[in-house]
């Protein structure tokens, strides 16, 4: 029996070979350009639709939508510490939320999710329209899987959130568990630097060159008081992530200078050897 199955396997593999249909990877040697569109949208105070006149190059799906904040210190120590991982996972718990200061309780009841980070949730929204048809934005799977599954509870629902006198950022739908509130999860992975992008969603349709995309946005989030900037970014990615020339340039520069130095030393060594 066993022999038979093994023989079968071999035959099958052989037929794959003879039929030239072995699984293969096809390295595409033509450079795969990452296309990125960055638009600042908070110059005017009034929320109004703006247009991306022309898509500069063909953008292959998925196209990632980011909002970019500048001069926003999400890495401030006071801010970073102001959260309770325990509460996010286990929910209603009077204890372990002291770390959420100063946003822990309101009207003597704990806030879920507590802390400054959650309280200042980004709440601008964008809709994209191409050729008068709305581009569907996929807003699922924008957060880490491990976050959704292990750090934000499936049975934890927002409670007593943004009910105080001071309203920070966005509100949460109290009927959706935290593990499905991906905007919150993304927001709560605090950024390392004061200028940062966060994933908003994906457009799963290709954009052609010279496509005109109109963005309707709700400019809710207050960055004016501290002089921050808000930008909208559409970008494709490659295996190295988004558009970043620094790495490539650095590699080229270091590689070439290493070669130069090597040549120089070899010449020096040949022309005027030691001793």
């Amino acid at each position, binding site marked *: 029996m066993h022999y038979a199955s093994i023989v079968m396997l071999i035959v099958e593999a052989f037929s794959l070979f003879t039929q030239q249909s072995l699984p293969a990877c096809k390295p595409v040697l033509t450079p795969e350009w990452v296309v990125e569109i960055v638009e600042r949208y908070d110059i005017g105070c009034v929320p109004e639709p703006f247009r991306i006149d022309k898509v500069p190059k063909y953008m292959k799906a998925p196209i990632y939508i980011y909002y970019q904040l500048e001069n926003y210190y999400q*890495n*401030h120590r006071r801010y970073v510490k102001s959260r309770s991982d325990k509460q996010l996972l286990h929910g209603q718990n009077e204890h372990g939320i002291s770390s959420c*200061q100063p946003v822990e309780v309101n009207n003597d009841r704990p806030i879920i999710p507590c802390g400054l980070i959650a309280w200042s949730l980004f709440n601008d929204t964008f809709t994209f329209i191409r050729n008068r048809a709305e581009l569907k934005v996929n807003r699922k799977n924008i957060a*880490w899987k*491990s976050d959704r599954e292990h750090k934000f509870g499936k049975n934890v629902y927002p409670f007593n959130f943004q009910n105080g006198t001071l309203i920070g*950022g966005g509100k949460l739908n109290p009927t959706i568990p935290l593990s499905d509130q991906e905007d919150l999860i993304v927001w709560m992975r605090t950024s390392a*630097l004061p200028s940062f992008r966060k994933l908003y969603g994906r457009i799963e349709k290709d954009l052609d060159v010279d496509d005109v995309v109109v963005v309707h946005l709700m400019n809710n989030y207050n960055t004016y008081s501290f002089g921050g900037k808000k930008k909208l970014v559409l*970008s494709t990615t490659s295996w190295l*992530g988004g558009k970043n020339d620094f*790495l490539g340039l650095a590699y080229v520069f270091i590689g070439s200078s290493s070669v130069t130095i090597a040549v120089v030393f070899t010449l020096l060594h040949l022309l005027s050897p030691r001793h």
Partner: protein
Amino acid sequence: MAAASSRKRKGKIRWSKLYSFAACFRPLTSEERPAARELIGQPGFSRVVFCNEPHLHKRKPYKYPYNYISTTKYNVLTFLPRALFEQFRRVANFYFLLAAIFSLFSLAPFSRASLIAPLVFVVGISMLKEAVEDWHRFLQDLDVNNRTVKTHISNGVFVDKLWKELRVGDVVKVNKGEYFPSDLLLLSSSYEDGVCYVETMNLDGETNLKIKRCLEASLCLNEDEEFSKFKATVHCEDPNPNLYTFVGNIEFEKESYPLSPSQLLLRDSKLRNTDYIYGVVIFSGHDTKAVRNSTRSPSKRSRIERKMDHIIYILFSMLVLVSLVSSFGSLLYLRQDMVDWWYLQLPDDNKVNDLDDSNSEKYDDRFFNPSKPVQSAGLQFIRALILYGYLIPISLYVSIEVVKVLQTMLINKDIELYDDVTCKSVQARTSNLNEELGQVEMILSDKTGTLTCNQMEFRKCSIAGLSYGGDITEVDLAASMRMNTDFEPFEFSIDETDGATRSFEPFEFSVSSFSAQNGNARLTKTEGPVIKGFNFRDDRLTNKNWIHGSNLFDITMFFRVMALCHTGIPLEDDNHKTDKLSYEAESPEEVSFLIASQEFGFQFCRRTQSLMVLKEFDPSSMKEVEREYKLLNLLEFSSSRKRMSVIVSNEDGQIFLLCKGADSIIFDRLADNGKAYEQATTMHLSSYAEDGLRTLAFAFRTIEAAEYESWNTIFTQAKATIGPEREELLEQASEMIEKDLILLGVVAVEDKLQKGVPECIDKLAQAGLKIWLLTGDKRETAINIGFACSLLRQDMKQFHLSLSRDAESNNQVKDMKEDILQQIESSYKMVCEERNKEAPFGLVIDGKALEIALRGDVKDEFLQLAVNCASVICCRVSPKQKALITRLVKQYTGKTTLAIGDGANDVGMIQEADIGVGISGMEGMQAVMAGDLSLPQFRFLERLLIVHGHWCYQRISKMVLYFVYKNVAFGLTLFYYELYTSFSGEVLYDDWYMTMFNVMLTSLPVIALGVLEQDVSSDICLQFPALYQQGPRNVHFSWSRIIGWILNGVVSSLVIFLANIYILSPTAMRENGFVADIDSLGAITYTCIIWTVNCQIALITSHFTWIQHLSIWGSILLWYIFLLVYGALPPNFSGNAFQVLVEGIGSAPLYWMITVLVVVVSLLPYFIHIVIQRSYFPMDDHIIQEMEQCYKKYDVRDNEMWVREQRNSQRSTRIGFSARVDAKILSFNQQLQQKKLSIYRSVTNSPIYRSITTSPFS
């Protein structure tokens, strides 16, 4: 039993009588210092001792301490506070203590445990080490304190009592070979005249026995029973450290007698050649002179460690600086921008003021309080101090302790440093001086027991103008050997140009090499059984072959002098297996003479009061006959007379004066017909002396009976005289008879050097070390040893500093000072004038002169002179002076000193020097206990310093520098990140990453480096001793290097941080569009750091074993494993690091690309630096490494280049065997040149030559 006791009795008579002859030259100590007696009862001289009534000393005012001694640093109560104080005197420890305290008030950015635990660990380990060391000291004390001694209790009964229970006033009985338990007043001895022999080697390093003599009045107290009613009162000086003075008197049977140092037996000295003595305890325990002479062992720290403190200061200033920047930045942000950041919910300045007090009290974030910005900034400052604490490598101290312990273990285990004879190996007792071994510039060495084995060997003699025992010195041998190899090519070139030289040149050399081989053959041919004290190989004399000699009478007389002119006695209690006897005498020299004469067939077998019996080999009958010689007079040896004579009459009634003494003294007293061999003997003398042998000339004269009678009356008269002129009269009397001598010859004895000492000194000299010899022994002995060790040589200009007799007799400090100053100045002038010449200078100074020379205003001149001399020998120096010289040399030159010695007299110097080394081969353990290391033999110093010292120095300096580098590289990234977080104090890395940094992820490679790194192998170290100079010149730990490494750290941190920031922000880092958050950035940056610092150490390491590979690459791997495991823990534990590798960064190709890029870029500056350095500015070790590499491949060690490099790498030295050989070659060459010239002249003057040159063709 009966036989033994009768023999004891016999011995008693002999010894006592023998020395009653000699009594004439003993200084009259009691009359010596009449002024001293008046001092009794004055302040400083108030001690009262009630002999045999120790109970009186239990109460005040006569309460003195027990004989208990303690050398421990701490006791149970003081240990904790004192040891802690010692620990927190270290700057870094103090800083971490502060950090720990702050963490208690939650001011620190890290958890309390992560700050307190390492501190407790570091301090705990160091304190444990202290405790163990002190425990060993305690055990040693316990051992000494629990020795027993026979003590009188009552009614003449003596029982064993522990040393520590002895009290002042106790009467004790000390037996032969025992140490004195405390300072004793000698009451009586087993000899009738109350003398005893004391070995003080442990105290002052002098090897010859000292005679102590009790008072006449107490002579009768020589039986146990006598002490039942004995009572006496001693008034004497208070305890003091002066070994050579003692003032006091004793009231005994209603009479008062003055006491002198010759009645005082000092603790730590040993009873020798005397069966027993009775004594009464005068000073006990810590009052004894030996203990007073000892100083507390200081805790020593190595130079690198001290410099490390400065590095810590630098890093600390960096820390304070960046902390200040942080706190100011925080202040600025707080006052200007932060209140606008609504997402922080900071209360607005104005709002706070508007709100009622309760609200502002509720406001609890002390770090960001806009209403109290200065306070907030202050708190931020403290937090920053702790946050950037990674700049200060706390684990450096732990790592260094660990590394040093491992290094010490490796040194102790080194098989090359193991002595098979004593079965001992090197023991590093404290591990904190390993690297100091690589920086030693000066060695201060004791002589006896350190360089020599305190054993005399009969080596050579010259009898009747013929030298026996090999006439080629080893220097000549080596010089001629090397000239043959060295000058062959040179010779060759001459051959072609000048045919005339050819005829004699090879001949000249062949003679020298032939005679050398010949001499060698003669030396090695007759390999008989080894006889202790007799290292003489010459078959012309041994095996009774001397009977074939030409001057039989002179030879016989020579042997008779050797066998009769001495103070020794044969030891009879040997088991009579052989007919050979062994002897005991005042000095080991005499013993060696007696053994030698026995070997030649003149066995000295008995001595009675007036008779000496020899078993002589009679050449005419070819049989051994026993002959008796009547001992008529004995004119004893003294340091001023420098000779000793006996007057004997043989069986035929012929009277002979047999004399031995220093050659100059004997030569002055030769008869006109006695100078037959003077010229030949003088030549031999100088060659013996150059080999470092101690020489004595032998002479004799026959005395007519009438002449003897008349002289004897004068002599007896002189002896009977009482009063100050007695000595002078005796001197005159002996001068009268010791004249018109007939020279027989000279003997040369070797103060036997320990194995390998000259070679070791040679190597050390080549390595550029200076060696000073400090000995308590006589000047002559010291100089002999100087020659034997090649510290001195014939063509060296020697300066002898000593007090002139006038100055000494006047006893005026001012005169003496002027005298010495003048000598120093004239010598120094000469040094300055002749500095350029080849001949080096040697300085010999004795203890008394040194005492003046080391005084405040003279010492600078003295040290200036001494430092400019190639070798310095200090003789007759006391233990205190040894320590003082060491301290002054250390202070004056600022160089690292190493003191090496074996006895208690070296303890001071051992403790004072930067490194103290005790020789563990001999008995006393004091030096070993005081030392930082102990060696079984001096010769191991070579490998210890040149190999282990060099290695440890390299290792520790590389290690410290690397530590600084890695902490700067890591610590600064924390600071840079602060710039991007508005100085809020947020940390880029997870707490656990940071804790792991010094503990696991970077510690093993650096420990492997510190323990196993070898720039070159041990063989190469020894072959290129000049490599050692890297240590004293401190090339590996210079400030430029330190700054360089700090800068390298700064560059690396900048590269790491900036590259990460620019690459990872703000775009997506993965194909799925995810961006790097704070945790991803932290993990990626941290990965880059781990890779960079570990690859950096791979670049530093030049000696890769699998351990290095494992530790370096293992550490990197460990980081990934850690990240994986930590990330797999539930989020409760791992927090934001949850799944960071698996989901966050590991799957992003960018992560790995960044790592490669950053590692390459951050290591590039260092890499370029070493490439340039190695190609264009190579250091010694680089060249040698390369050569080693080359020659490993081709295996041609004897390649010309190799030898040349090796020669070059030896530092041109002025002392040591090689230097002597060089000097010899120079003089050979000069002689050769002269000979060539003279031959050329003779040839050119010869008629044949003329006829050729004036040929008709010309």
